[in-house]
Each structure stands twice: as C-alpha cells, then as structure tokens.
C-alpha cells in the first residue's frame, strides 16, 4: 500500500525539475558537440540526428507498452540526453544503422527492461556503446581524420548522405576518407609493436591538438577543453557536484603520474591521459549520471575513484585502447553495494549508528 497523500509541508518547492537538469546538461554538451559536427561534417550531423531520433522513438514506444503517459516522461529530456551521449561515443562517419542500433539499445536494453526512468542499473549510453563495440568492432573503430565543414576535400551534404546511408557502396559511401586511428588506438598498437613512447608521441597528435579536439576519434571525445568547459558549467549551475569528476580525473592522473615516474618510456604522463579519449566526457557527463551513481558523498568519491582506476588499468594493460565504457559499467554494477554500505553519518550518531556519547560533565568550554 502506498502512503496516502496528505496536505503537508513543505508548501514551497525549489522548482528544480528533472527537465531543467537535462536541459542544462544538453546545453553543456553543445559546444563540444558543435565542434565535433563541424570537424567531421555532414555525416556526423546525420548520425547525431539519427541516434537521438531513434532513442526518442524507442522511448516513446516503451512508454506506450508500459502504459505510462508518454508526453510527461518524454518531456523530461532524458531520452534525448541518452541518445546524445550514444551519438557522442560513435565514430562520426559510422553508418546509419549503427546510430539506430545505438539509440534503440540504449533505451530498450539500457533503460526500459529495468523498468524505465530511475530504475536502470547501467548507464544506457554505455550499454549501447559496449554492445556495439563488441558486436561491430570494425565499424566502431573506423575513425577518420577531421574534415571540417566547407574545407576542401570535406564531404558536402550529398556526400554526407552517401557516407551515412552507404549509398555509394563501401564503408564510406565511395567517398575518400582519410582513415586514421584514434590517439589511444595508435598508442596501443604502436606500444604493442615495441615502439618507444617518445617516438609514438612525436608522430601523433600533441597535447594542444588533443585539448582542442582536432584529432581523430569519436564524435564527442575529441575536444577535452570544450568538454571541461561544459563540465564546469554543470558545476556552476549545481547540476552535478565536484566529487565524481574530481575523483575520476584525480585517480587516473595519479596512477598515470605514478607509472610515468616508474618508466617514462612506456607510460604516458597524466596530461596525456586527461586530454585523450573519452575521459573528460566520462568524468563530467557519463559517470555523473544520477541514476547509476551512488547517492552518498563518500560513495560518490569511491565510485569515481573506481572508474578512474579502471580506465587507467584498461587503457594501459587491457585489450581495448579505451576503457571508459567498461569502467563505467563495472562501477555501475557496484553502485547498489556502495549505496548499501556507505550512508552518510546520521546527526548525533556515530558512523555505526550508535548515539554519540555525552561529553563528560565539566569539559564543556
């Protein structure tokens, strides 16, 4: 039985809503996304639209099947946001069906099989990314070098359609793409070949390019600087708090620094790790997902540290060059346990829940 709703305080409300939070997150993602769309041109824009469209459509369908009022739930914007994050984790010139599958998996498998909003154990966008990565490793790692909108050699509108929908035949729709490995992929392959770190780094993109994002990679994992900007925006507006981003970035940076000190020829330094791959996106936009992260402050720190450590471990010793997706899913799985074990200390009680002992008489100031 559910408690009867009585008229009771508070008779005021902060007016914060789920849709407001989602709107601000979207806003914070806009600069990085816009840059990605600019750098990778029409195919990226199409893929972005397709992925979000599918996510929203899939959400509407699931809501209808679950007999919930679609309008009210769709308006909260969480489907748009999940679709958006999936799109950001795809190679920008991926074919249309990757976007469709991504959006649909995120909503159906990632969210609604668990019972919908607030019930899912795993981050929907990461579920989609990892399922796609495992099922379609070729398409999911087919990165291209940036070809900014309007630049000579960049695909035009029609070329873009051809690339995304595979009209011209071949992976890139008959268009001459400058295929290129992502920086982490490049690093991992070259290190595997026994090349020295310095040589690899000299041949690849520098820290500045990495921060700006003018490198090959997923749509949204390119510009660390713009993602950081968006993340700071979220902090300022109070949509997220500092604990998860700081613990994710801090842990990765600490481990990177440690190993770099041990063997600088094999382990890149912290700055490289922070600006490459999807770490920035993860720290501010993915790991901070409300539903799948712990709720207590200490729990958030542990969770963030776990992600940071796993990202480093997978990047350094794992089979995949980038570990963000796996790290997030693994820590998502730990969230219920973290929440169960770590609750804030109750006022007037010790951490174990016993009432505080009274100070001995006379020792008060």
């Amino acid at each position, binding site marked *: *039985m*559910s*408690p*009867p*709703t*009585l*008229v*009771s*305080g*508070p*008779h*005021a*409300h*902060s*007016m*914060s*809503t*789920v849709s*407001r*939070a989602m709107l601000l997150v979207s806003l914070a993602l806009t600069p990085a996304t816009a840059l990605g769309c600019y750098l990778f041109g029409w195919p990226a824009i199409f893929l972005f639209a397709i992925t979000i469209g599918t996510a929203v459509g899939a959400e509407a369908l699931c809501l209808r099947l679950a007999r919930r009022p679609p309008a*009210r*739930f769709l308006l*909260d914007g*969480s489907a748009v946001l999940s679709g958006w994050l999936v799109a950001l984790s795809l190679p920008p010139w991926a074919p249309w069906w990757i976007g469709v599958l991504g959006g649909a998996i995120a909503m159906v498998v990632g969210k609604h099989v668990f019972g*919908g*909003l*607030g*019930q899912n154990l795993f981050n929907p966008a990461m579920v989609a990314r990892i399922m796609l990565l495992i099922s379609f490793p070729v398409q999911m790692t087919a990165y291209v070098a940036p070809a900014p909108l309007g630049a000579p050699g960049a695909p035009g509108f029609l070329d873009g359609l051809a690339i995304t929908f595979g009209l011209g035949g071949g992976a890139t729709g008959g268009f001459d793409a400058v295929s290129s490995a992502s920086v982490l992929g490049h690093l991992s392959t070259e290190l595997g070949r026994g090349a020295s770190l310095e040589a690899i780094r000299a041949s690849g993109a520098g820290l500045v390019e990495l921060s700006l994002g003018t490198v090959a990679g997923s749509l949204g994992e390119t510009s660390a600087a713009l993602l950081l900007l968006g993340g700071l925006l979220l902090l300022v507006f*109070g*949509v997220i*708090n500092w604990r998860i981003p700081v613990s994710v970035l801090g842990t990765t940076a600490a481990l990177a620094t440690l190993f770099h000190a041990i063997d600088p020829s094999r382990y890149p330094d912290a700055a490289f790790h922070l600006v490459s791959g999807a770490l920035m996106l993860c720290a501010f936009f993915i790991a901070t997902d*409300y*539903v*799948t*992260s*712990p*709720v*207590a*402050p200490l729990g*958030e720190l542990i969770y963030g540290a776990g992600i940071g450590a796993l990202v480093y471990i997978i990047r350094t010793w794992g089979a995949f060059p980038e570990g963000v997706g796996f790290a997030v899913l693994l820590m998502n799985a730990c969230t219920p346990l973290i*929440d169960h074990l770590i*609750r*804030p*200390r*109750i*006022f*007037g*009680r010790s951490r174990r*829940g016993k*009432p*505080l*002992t*009274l*100070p001995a*008489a*006379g020792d*008060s*100031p």
Partner: protein
Amino acid sequence: MKRLSLGALRGRARVHAVRGGVHPKDNKALSAECPIEPIPLSGLLRVPLQQHIGAEAEPVVAKGDRVAKGQVLAIGRRAVSAAVHAPTSGRVIAIGRFVAPHPSGLPVATITLRPDGEDRWADLPSPLDPNTATPDALAERVAASGIVGMGGATFPSAVKLDLRNRFPLDTLVINAAECEPYLTCDDRLLRERAAAVADGILCMARALTVDKVIVAIESNKPQAAAAMRKAVANLPLDARVIVVPTRYPMGSEKHLVQALTGRETPARALTAEIGLVVHNPATAYAVHRAVRHGEPLISRILTVSGRAVARPANIEVPIGTPIADILAHCGGTLGEPARLLLGGPMMGLPVPSTRAPVVKGTNGILALSAAECRRDEAMPCIRCGTCVTVCPSGLTPLELNARIRNEELDGAVRIGLLDCISCGSCSYVCPSNIPLIQSFNYAKGKLAAQQRVKHQQEETKRLAQQREVRLERIAAAKMEALKRRKAEMAAKKAKAKAQEGAKAAAPLETAS
C-alpha cells in the same frame, strides 16, 4: 537544485559547520517593514485548553462566569502542561470541543469568551526582580503565566527552565534564526522591543542559573541583530549576538547549537544534556511581561503574509482571536488562496477552518497563491542524491521512502527514520516532486500506532498475568486455609478421641 558546501559557512567568524539545508526564497520583504500593530478585539474569543505539548489544562471557571483580563481559566495538570488565561475581560459563554489548530486536526476542549469591551485587568501577581528572586520563584512565575515555547514547538517553558535541576547547564541560546520563509514576527519583535526581550533573557538566564547567553540571528535580519547587540550589551551577563548564515533549517534546535558551539547533541538526547537550553525570543518577551509586570501569556505577535493576502502585516493578537477576523483585518484574501497555513511554508500546517482561533504557538498565518506553492506531479526517483545532500540529519531520504513504500517500516527505522526532524528540506529540493515527507510522517504515525497497540497488548498481558498470579495466590491461600482447618479438625478429633478414651478408661478404672 542548489547544493551547499561547508566552506561557505566556515568563512564566517565563530560559526561552526552544519550539514545540509536549503535556501528557499525567504519572501520576508512582504512584511519585514510592517511595524507590529494591534488588532481590534473580536466579538468572541475561543481559548483552547491545549495550546501546548503535554496534558490538557483543566478549567477552573464555569459557563456563565464573569472573568477579568489575565484571570486563570484553566490550570495545568500533571508535570508537563500549561495554564490558560483570559485574554480580556468578559463572560464565559461555553466550554466544549471546538476546532483548533492542533496537529491532530481534532477538535480541542475550548473555553469561549464573550468580551465585555472593558478590557478590565484581574489582580496580577506582583512584579519580581530577576536579580533578587530565586530561580525557583522565577520558574514558578513562568509556569503560572502559562508560557510555552512560542516558536511553534509550544513546549511548556517552565519545564525547560527546570532542566537546571537535571543537567549541568552553561548557556542559554535565544533562537532568533527565524529560518522559515515569510515569517517576520521575531524580526519585528527584536527590532521594536529589544530592551524588553533582553530583560526577558536576563530573567531566563537567572532562572536557569547560567551566565552565558547567545542570541542567534540569521544574516538576513541585520537590523534585528544590531538592535539586540545594543540591548544585550547592558545586561549583567556574558551575552552576545551571533549572526548565523541564512539557511533552512538553521532554527532547528540541535543544528543551531551545533552551528553556535560546534557541539553535536547525541541522538535521542536533549540539548540540555550538553549544557545548552534553547528558547525563542517571543518566549523571552513573554517571560519579561510575566516577571516584570505579572502579566500572563494572553497575546502574541504573528505575521500575516503571502501573496494571496491583501495587506501583509505583523500583528499583536489576543490568544483566541479567530483566524477569519485576522485575515479580515488584513484586508482579506485576494481570491481563494491556494493554501492557507498556520506557521511557515516549510513546516506549517493547513488551517483547519478560518473559525479556528490563534493559539500561543501560532507564529504566522500565510495565504499562499497558486504560484507560491506550485508543485508538479510526482515522477519516479532519478536517484539524483540531492535529498541526501540537503538532509540536515544525514539521512538517505530516497531509500527511506523506498522502504516505507515497501512497508518495511523496521528497515526504515534501521536507516534512521526516527532521526528525521521532518524539516521537509528533502521534499523541497526533490526534482521529481516526490512527497518524501508525507511518506515519513505516515510511517512515523504508523509506528506510533503500532507502539500503542503493542503497549496495550503488553498491558493486557501484564494484567492477565497479574490476575493469574492473584488467582493462584487466592487458590493457594484457600488450600492453606483448608489444610489448616483439616489439621484443626484432626487435632480436635484427636483431642475428642483422647477425651473419649479417657472417659472410656475412667469407668474402667473406676470399675477396677
């Protein structure tokens, strides 16, 4: 979705960190500049006999009696109770149950008084000098004057003053935080009658036999703080004013004490157990009137505010004045208010009926427009954790709610349900508009009911056992008596036999 950092607090001198809390729009500007004004006497005053926590007061007047202003209408029963006095002179026209602002929502025994318009005072007890009167005499005067905690808690003040007999006290805290939005009555009181409040503080400090006094005022009331600073400077006490950050629920006793002293009151304990007693400034004012003038508590200052009231105001009203008369005095409501409340918007209760009277604990009457108390429909919890961050008691409201919805009341108690102070901060911030506090209040009510049933069952069992024991004892006693009688009988018989034998033998003897 404002989040708070402890750092924001540490910047202020002498204030310690307190967890959680929210920053609701304080809306105090509506009435903050309205001086305290009197109100014309109502045609009927209804004085409830339970305006305090504890036992209902017992009437000492009868229907038809003429009473004078300040005369005792009902006396406190048992240890925790408070007397009730006539707010003006007039005739008692009824004693019976009437709708009143009581958390239960049930009618309360009420004395109805028809004022005679003379406002004639009764003979009042003679003034006391706090510097020469004994603490007991001061506490007795406070008890006789029917003074209760006027910040809304309505705990009998004399009982709180007697805490000195149970715990070693060192500090009197005057809780002028007034953290509820809209309310400005304490602010006005401190600004306009600082000297009287300061004198009341002296009386209370003397009654408690403490020398240290802290007056805590939220930072949004600088004028009140300045006035009090000046007023307490003259007191023969170690008294100071501390400005605390404006944040709800700063006025929660235990949290205020922590902010002021850094001392954390253990769960289920009183602040007195760590040496501090907290009183409200309106209570201090009432104590001043009682000690220096012999006047009982028969009126109070309250704020009438909200965007649905025509003329927000701070009014000094006789206890028992119907809410409708007060609203009328303030120009009435603008259309039908979306919500009519007693107290602030965070913890206030809906007005049961505008015919209900103002009582000692009524610090505000709010008529809120729809825009002020808008709340969207509840949506699923998105686990955003904001409720956890703002909870001043360090609870996990989302989980409490989940357990209560599953009817796992014991589970909810295990994670701190009973440590919830019902401040409503969690409900206030929840972006999914989940009625968290309703769920907690429901669970607490249910637990209390279970407790009562359990208590009753135990009581019945105990009585049954007692009866059994008694019956056994009676049976045993009966057996005993029976045995004794048997033994007596046997003894008698034996004696008789012996006599008979003797008799029988005698003839033989004689025969021989």
